[in-house]
């Protein structure tokens, strides 16, 4: 196979080489920190960590939280995806839903956590308004709500992309064969979107498992989770070994979810884009009762998100929050005066990371789903490794690995780019795979048998078909590069600084108004970039997609 496919061989060499440097090297250095004690292999560190009841509680807490968030997040995301792809509500409403659903994703998690405490915390405004007295947001409940709000947009994006690539003629067939709308939804729409559902659960589980910022603000001391405990251990006790060991405990559930996903999806066929279908028709209506559920959930979630971000916007526009409500633009002047460098750096880093990351995602996703080669599973697993590890640990591992020769990268732009690319391209890979699972390989086989080479087939058949999935992957990557903090808080330097760390600084320095202004600016940049990205891609791929029948107009906002 390899001999006949030199392009695959070259791609493999490149990908494995980059993995060796940016995934395995830091990982091995970290393994060393965990399992080598006084120059010898030892389990002493693991024993120490597991001997403490509080750490076991943290492991348990992490698992419960990740499970809860992955389920609620996926359900809410699925309902939102149905709303924009399967209902008859106006395009404007769909645009609003898509835009609002993006908000939690494009602001750093601690921003919404803080407005959440202002709304639902002790003496919270919403609690007062609703007349609820004794309610504690700190602990499992608050963390769960906040993480569901933060991560359901991921599910929304992944599922929307797949719901859009389904063939509507199947709906027609089901209905004309006499199936009820419920039966059609249950036996057709849901099973066909199963890859997206499972991928969404996997992504959300991983994201929640690795999130340290939300539990840090909302978890309180009664609900410990591992990444936060690891972070506290590293930054508070300067105990890198203990922190690294704790994070390794997270690898076990991450691996478990990964193999579960392989088992569930391994043998089934989800092909719905076959090239054999006739002209495109509209998707069939959903059952009425489901429409009601969708309307209620979307309305509540959208209203709540708007409320939370209104607090932030308000905070950025008044002199002293809740004390002096005189409108002012002084916080924005502060942001553009003192935060200019951070804004420029962040945007530059995000653009570079998105371009490199999505190139890699397409190549890797394609190889994993469509090619047969030795070590395919290992490649798939390795590609997800940095994503599965908590960001704090990746950050520390990068510092240790790239601060000494031969590769001295600390303090450079490249280390930030590499951390982002090899952590967040995972979403791109997952959505490329999910969308390839829907596309019949017969389309590519036809191209091959008609004499096109593997490369021509890839660029002219496969790439156009997965473009909607790729766009959603790219958008997610860009957003994450703009907002993520856990890994890169250890990698920012005197030369390269990020907006998110500036926001966290403003928060810890009690500059709530400046933090709000920074957040609003960040959100505006992401929205603008997202808009440009979508339209540029639509324009440049117009000539390919005109002949295809895939519309990606509806992939959310």
């Amino acid at each position, binding site marked *: 196979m390899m001999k006949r496919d030199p392009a695959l061989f070259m791609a493999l060499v490149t990908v494995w080489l980059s993995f060796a440097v940016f995934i395995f090297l830091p990982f091995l250095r970290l393994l060393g920190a965990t399992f080598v004690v006084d120059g010898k292999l030892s389990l002493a560190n693991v024993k120490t960590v597991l001997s403490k009841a509080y750490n076991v509680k943290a492991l348990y807490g992490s698992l419960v939280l990740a499970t809860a968030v992955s389920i609620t997040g996926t359900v809410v995301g699925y309902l939102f995806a149905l709303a924009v792809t399967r209902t008859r509500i106006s395009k404007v409403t769909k645009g609003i839903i898509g835009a609002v659903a993006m908000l939690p994703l494009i602001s750093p998690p601690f921003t919404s956590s803080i407005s959440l405490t202002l709304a639902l915390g002790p003496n919270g405004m919403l609690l007062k308004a609703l007349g609820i007295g004794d309610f504690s947001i700190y602990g499992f409940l608050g963390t769960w709500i906040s993480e569901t709000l933060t991560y359901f947009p991921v599910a929304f994006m992944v599922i929307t992309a797949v719901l859009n690539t389904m063939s509507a003629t199947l709906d027609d067939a089901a209905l004309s064969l006499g199936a009820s709308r419920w039966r059609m939804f249950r036996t057709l729409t849901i099973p066909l979107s199963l890859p997206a559902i499972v991928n969404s659960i996997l992504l959300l589980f991983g994201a929640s498992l690795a999130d340290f910022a939300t539990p840090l603000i909302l978890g309180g001391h009664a609900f410990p989770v591992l990444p936060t405990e690891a972070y506290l251990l590293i930054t508070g006790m300067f105990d890198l070994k203990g922190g690294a060991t704790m994070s390794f405990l997270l690898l076990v559930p991450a691996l478990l979810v990964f193999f579960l996903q392989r088992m569930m999806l391994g043998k089934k066929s989800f092909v719905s884009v076959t090239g054999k279908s006739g002209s495109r028709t509209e998707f069939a209506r959903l059952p009425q009762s489901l429409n009601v559920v969708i309307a209620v959930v979307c309305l509540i979630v959208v209203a709540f998100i708007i409320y939370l971000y209104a607090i932030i916007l308000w905070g950025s526009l008044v002199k002293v929050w809740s004390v002096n409500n005189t409108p002012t633009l002084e916080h924005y002047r502060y942001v553009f005066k003192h935060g200019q460098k951070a804004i420029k750096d962040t945007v530059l880093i995000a653009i570079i990371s998105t371009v490199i990351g999505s190139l890699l995602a397409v190549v890797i996703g394609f190889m994993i789903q469509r090619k047969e080669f030795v070590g395919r599973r290992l490649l798939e697993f390795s590609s997800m490794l940095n994503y599965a590890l908590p960001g704090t640990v990746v950050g520390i591992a990068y*510092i240790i690995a790239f601060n000494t020769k031969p590769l*001295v990268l600390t*303090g*450079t732009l490249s280390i930030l780019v590499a951390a982002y690319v090899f952590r967040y391209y995972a979403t791109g890979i997952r959505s490329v795979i999910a969308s390839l699972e829907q596309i019949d390989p017969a389309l590519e086989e036809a191209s091959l048998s008609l004499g096109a080479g593997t490369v021509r087939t890839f660029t002219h058949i496969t790439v156009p078909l997965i473009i909607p999935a790729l766009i959603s992957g790219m958008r997610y990557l860009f957003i994450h590069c703009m907002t993520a903090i856990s890994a890169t808080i*250890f990698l920012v330097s005197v030369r390269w600084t990020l907006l998110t760390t500036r926001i966290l600084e403003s928060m810890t320095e009690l500059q709530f108004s400046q933090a709000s202004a920074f957040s609003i600016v960040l959100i505006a940049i992401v929205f603008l970039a997202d808009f440009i990205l979508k339209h540029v891609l639509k324009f440049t791929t117009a000539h390919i997609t005109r002949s295809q029948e895939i519309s990606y107009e509806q992939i959310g906002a």
Partner: protein
Amino acid sequence: MKSMKKALIVLSMIGLLLAPVFAAGVQEKASTTLNVYTIMPEKYATTVFEEFTKDTGIQVNFVRLSSGEALARLIAEKANPQVDALWGGPADTYEAGVLEGVFEVYVPSEASAIPAQFKSSKGYWTGIGVIPLTFLSSNSFLKEKGLQPPTSWNDLLDPRYYNALQMADVRTSGTATERVYSLIQVWGEDKAYEYQKQLHKNIQLYTKSGAGGAMPIATGQAGSGIFYIVDALDIQQQGYDLVISYPVEGVTYGVEGSGIVKGAKNLDAAKKLMDWASSKRLGQVMVDNKINYIPTRPDVVVTNPALDMSKVKLLETSVAWKGANRERLVQRWIDEVIQGQ
């Protein structure tokens, strides 16, 4: 075929060459720039370094980190230091760093004018400011519960403070470890931990950073907490309805340090910063700009009455003792206060 190959070549180029290219692109003039990690809040550091640049012509690049993060980084970067100096932050962080070998000995030109308890006996760090602990309470909360501003540590055990206290987590915050030192000075270690177990029942939240609880108190989410004076005054000066009070049993104070990182690439510039910091000039800059540290130079006149410590009982704890006992005390706090519940 060509396009794919091209794409692959580009890909490999990006993957493998980008890094060194960017790394090599970073060159700077040695004597006129200085790279610093600052634990001192950014808004203060900006002002202070601007004045330093005015006086010496040396440009300062800095990034603000919490004390734990800063030290974790200095240790991780030991083989190839990314900065020349550490600025601000509790002196026990410096002592912990000395044990890890990340600091360089340098005695600044005017260090002799700084009292011995405000600087390293071996010359690893020099104090730039002093900050006692203080109670910070919301006036509206006190009124609502019919309370007076707390004047004793025991006042905070009152059930009326139930679920109303926010203060920093001992694992991440220098403010919080200072609280532990204060209590040990007041009652001895065992009784101090007994007290903290009692206090824990009234705690709403332990925050990551030392100042993290001040905003919730200002906005009425919490009622009271324990902070360094610099943070308490800062939020009070923003216009919130807050009251600052001190316990009669006394409080310890933090010494904010400064020191040169071992292997500093701009050693001369770093020495200039230390010399400047030991002069009266720094104290004056802080007084003039309402940066609420008490200068370590006794000959700088403090104008803010809130920083007048004549009526406050200040307890002495040597920085060396703090550094040597910190880890053990934090572990005990986790074991007994956090997990013991």
